[in-house]
């Protein structure tokens, strides 16, 4: 029983990690940037989702609005922050990204206060019994929603012109450019989708805990960095598998080695152990 409950917990967190980490992998695979500020966009998504839900009373309306808005912010970050320093050594973009993330967190704190906000009336909190477990509606929504969104995106990437252009650019930017694909357009698209996904994940986690706070981006996104390494950096399928694996490992780890290290350390211990055995990541090619 405990086993099933832990597994379900792991699955829920795994889905959320996947939704965050896919955006990071997309950015990395196209630009080789470790986009730490992604965490800020995740938190921004949470804030916007909550504020819009409180204002309109409808989550259905708030979620896509928040995702689109954060997507646009993501594109702006690419245009004004990353594009001018792409030719520099990789640590330049990394440190710039960290600075941006700190600044975003502080802006949330200064505007919305350090203690965070809660939903006026948190949606999807009804519980019901399934297989002997008590499950909240929001948990089902997270799992189904993530699978649906990621599934649709993967379908679109295979069956639309833009999707095919995007995949070609990830494989070989120079070749893609020589076929007349606008690399710039693909990069914008990439940041839009990745950031929108982060926003969705932010809204999910705010529903799960009925809370948004300035520092909410930190821990999940550090873990997302660990996940994209496990997934083999830039490998989307690998990232998805690694997310689920990490979610489940954490859920069990908290119970079995929880008094030796805390939950957040488990993720990194797992990553380090895996990297020692498979230095290219779980799903990375050689």
């Amino acid at each position: 029983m405990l086993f099933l409950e832990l597994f379900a917990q792991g699955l829920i967190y795994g889905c959320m990690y996947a939704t965050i980490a896919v955006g990071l992998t997309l950015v990395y695979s196209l630009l080789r940037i470790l986009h730490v500020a992604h965490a800020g966009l995740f938190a921004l998504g949470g804030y916007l989702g909550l504020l819009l839900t409180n204002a309109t009373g409808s989550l259905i309306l708030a979620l896509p609005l928040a995702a689109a808005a954060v997507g646009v912010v993501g594109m702006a970050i690419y245009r004004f922050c990353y594009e001018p320093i792409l030719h520099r050594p990789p640590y330049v973009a990394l440190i710039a990204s960290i600075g941006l993330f700190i600044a975003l967190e502080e802006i949330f704190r200064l505007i919305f206060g350090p203690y965070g906000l809660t939903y006026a009336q948190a949606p999807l909190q009804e519980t019901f019994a399934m297989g002997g477990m008590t499950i909240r509606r929001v948990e089902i929504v997270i799992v189904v929603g993530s699978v649906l969104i990621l599934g649709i995106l993967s379908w679109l990437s295979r069956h639309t012109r833009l999707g095919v252009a995007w995949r070609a650019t990830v494989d070989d930017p120079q070749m893609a450019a020589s076929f007349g694909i606008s690399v710039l357009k693909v990069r914008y698209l990439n940041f839009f989708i990745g950031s929108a996904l982060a926003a969705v994940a932010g809204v999910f986690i705010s529903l799960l805990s009925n809370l948004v706070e300035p520092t909410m981006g930190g821990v999940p996104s550090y873990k997302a960095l660990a996940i994209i390494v496990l997934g083999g950096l830039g490998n989307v399928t690998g990232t998805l598998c690694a997310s689920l694996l990490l979610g489940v490992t954490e859920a069990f780890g908290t119970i079995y080695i929880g008094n030796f290290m805390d939950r957040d350390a488990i993720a990194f211990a797992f990553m380090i152990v895996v990297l020692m055995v498979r230095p290219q990541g779980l799903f990375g090619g050689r």
Partner: protein
Amino acid sequence: MGIYEISLATVVGINVILALGLNLITGFCGQISLGHAAFYGIGAYTTALAAQSGVPGLVSLAAAMFAAAAIGVVVGLASLRVRHDFLAITTMGVGFLFLGIVRQEDRWLGGELGISAIPAFGLSKPGYLLFVLLLALLTAMLSGYINRSWMGFAFEAVADDEDTARVVGVDVAAYKLAAFSLGTALAGLAGGLYAYFTRFIVPDDFGFITSISILSMVAVGGIGSTTGVILGAGLLTLMPEFFRFISDYKLLVYGVLLFAVMRFAPEGLAGVGRSWLARWRLGRRAP
């Protein structure tokens, strides 16, 4: 100089040692580390435990350096196995792992509450300040010496292009390990000095934010430049004091500064200094 200024100057000295250590790894040898605070912490905890069991000051500082460097070599060995762009995240993981273990370990390390009542080093406050500044000066001299030696030459080659370094006969792995062990030993020393200075340490002193602050000192000062990094460490340590009148905004200013330096002057203070100097020389040469 009042007590307050003395404390501030001591912290500057400690941070200079810490930042120069990271500069050895990241600046000279080109290996990004996002977990330097873990080695700082290892040094601090080692010193705290040693001091509490009655070990004399200098010995426990040496123990701190040794412990940090030992773990540093292990992390360095691990880093040799992973792809180059994994290293930043692996070292970040090491930082979180350290923190996660220290927080849960409440029998020896005091868990979340840390270790308090660490015995004094045995110097007065101004005396301790002089001791720290002396060590910072020695570290700066060592750093400058390494940069001019053939070891520094090899570091430069490894940082520039590992594959090319190999084909001119550089044992890339050995030099990376050397950089890791020297840099983390300095972090250990800084940690030990910090433990004797505050005489009270908690896990959060050595978290991810600290790692980022150290990296910022290096980056803002100018990666690879000893003088630049000293200036960077001084500036970023004192900056929150300059901005005390807007203390609520100090982290925001910090984040924006970090971003702005990377965006507009990626070579840091040292780079800005160099280009001014070049312009000045050009101006003098022109009629």
